C-alpha cells in the first residue's frame, strides 16, 4: 500500500470499539492508517465532527456503532443512522466524495467483520487518494486568471 492516509474512526464504546478489540485479540491484521476515537455511543456523534475532520484534512472518516436494535443506550444508533445518512448525502454538494465517509455497525463480537470493514474502507480511501482541502488554495489563482465569478445559472 502507498503512503499512509489520514483516516479517523469514531467508534461507540460498547459495540464497535469492542469489535476492534476483538479483532485485535484475534490478531486480525489490518491496515495502519486508521486512528480510533472512542465515543460512548454512535448517538454522541455530531455530524459536525465528521465534517470538521474532513474539512480539517482527514482523508476518510469511518463511524461505527452497535447494530440497530442493539444500542447499549437503546436508541442512540437510530438517531445516528438518520443523521449520518443525511450527512453522507450532503457531502457531494461541498465537493467531498461521499465515499470518504462511511458509517456501519459492528458488534463487539464481530472481530472479523471489523477487519473487513477497516480493510475495505482503507482501500476505498486509498483509491480516492488524499482529500482536497478548501483552505489549501487561495483565490489568488482565480484572480490571476482573471476569472469573474458568475452567479449560479
Amino acid at each position, binding site marked *: 500500500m502507498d503512503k499512509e492516509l489520514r483516516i479517523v474512526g469514531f467508534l461507540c464504546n460498547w459495540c464497535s470499539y469492542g469489535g476492534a478489540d476483538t479483532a485485535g485479540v484475534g490478531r486480525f491484521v489490518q491496515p495502519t492508517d486508521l486512528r480510533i476515537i472512542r465515543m460512548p455511543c454512535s448517538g454522541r456523534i455530531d455530524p459536525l465532527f465528521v465534517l470538521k475532520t474532513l474539512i480539517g484534512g482527514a482523508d476518510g472518516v469511518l463511524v461505527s456503532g452497535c447494530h440497530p436494535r442493539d444500542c447499549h443506550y437503546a436508541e442512540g444508533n437510530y438517531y445516528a443512522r438518520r443523521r449520518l445518512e443525511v450527512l453522507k448525502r450532503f457531502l457531494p454538494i461541498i465537493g467531498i466524495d461521499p465515499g470518504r465517509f462511511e458509517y456501519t455497525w459492528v458488534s463487539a463480537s464481530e472481530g472479523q467483520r471489523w477487519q473487513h470493514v477497516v480493510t475495505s474502507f482503507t482501500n476505498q480511501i486509498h483509491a480516492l487518494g488524499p482529500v482536497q482541502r478548501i483552505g489549501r488554495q487561495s*483565490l*489568488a489563482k482565480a*484572480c*490571476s*486568471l*482573471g476569472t*469573474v*465569478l*458568475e*452567479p449560479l445559472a
Partner: protein
Amino acid sequence: MDALFLADDKLSAWLGELAAARRVLVPVREREAVVFRPYAAGVTPVLDRQANVPPKASVFPASEALMSFRYTKNPENLGQVAVEVHETIDAPPTVVFGGRPCDARGFLVFDRVYDTPKIQDTAYKKRRENTLFVTLACDDPQNTCFCNSIGSSPYDATGSDVLLTPVSGGYLVECASERGKELVESKLLSDGNALREEAKTVHASALSALGPAWNPSPAKAKLIEKFEDMGFWEDVSAKCISCGACTYLCPTCYCFNVTDERTGMKGERIRTWDTCMSYLFTLEASGHNPRPTKAHRLKNRVGHKFSYYPEIHGGPIACCGCGRCISLCPVSVDIREIVRLSIERPTAKPENK
C-alpha cells in the same frame, strides 16, 4: 501640480506598472458583490459603482497574526516550559486602486486611534505607511450616500494619494499627496490640465445629486442626552438583527478582538475584526454584559460615531458617509434616520426610581 490624463485604454497598462513593485488591490465583481482583490493581468476592475466591501482590510486585515509563539520544554524537567515569541507584521507595499473618497477617508478615523503620539499600533502603522490610495471620485452617488453631510464630498481627496475623476475618454489624474507623486510618474499619463474644467463639472453634478446636506453635529449632545432613553433606542433598533454587516463593511469601524490560537506546542496571537453589534463584544468573563440588548448596542454604534468619538478625538465624527451600513443592511436600518431622530425627537425624561 499639474493634472494628468489617463486614457481608458491605458488603464490596464498603468495598473500593470503599479503592480510590478506593489500589491495593487482593485475592486472586482464576484457574483453581485464587488470586493477588492489583488490585481493581476486580465483582471477587470469594476469602477462604475461602490464596492460592497471597502478596502479596509488593506491596512486593517480581518484577521492577522500579531505574533507567533512556541513552547519548549526543559528536557531535564518536562514540567518547566519556556515560550519563544516572534512578532509578525505582514505589510507589503500596497496600492488601493479604485476606492472612493469615503473609503480612503475612513482611515483618518483609524489614525486618531492607532497612530497617536501616545499610542502606536505598530502593525497598523507599518501597513498604513506602506499603503497608498488611488481614489476615484464619484460621478453619480448612490441613494445611501451622505458624505456631504459629514463634511466631505464625492471628490474629497483627503486621505487619498491620487484622485481620479472620470472624464470623457478616461480619467483626470491629480496628485493628492506627496506620496502620490511616485505613482503618477508614468509615461502612460499625459497632460490633463485642459480637462480640469470638465472634472469640476463632474464634481459639481455629483455633489448636487446628493441633495441638500444635513447637519449631524447637534447629535453630539443629543446622543448623550438620549443615553438613558432606552425607549428611543428600543424603537430605532427594533428591526436590527444584530449581525455585523454594518460594522465589518464600515470603513471607519476599527474594533478588534485578540485571541491566542494554539495547536500542540505552537500557536499565534490573532487579531480579528470585532463588532459592537454582537452580544459577545462586551460579554464579560463573569457572565455580566453591560450591553445586553441590541438597543444598547445600536446606541453604542451610533453614539460612538456621532458623539463619543468626536468628543474624545476633538471634533471629527467617525463616519465617512459611504452608506454601506444602510445599503447592505439585511433589514435596511438607516443610520441617517437614527441620527436625525436623535436630534429631532424629544428625549424622554428618565423615570425617577
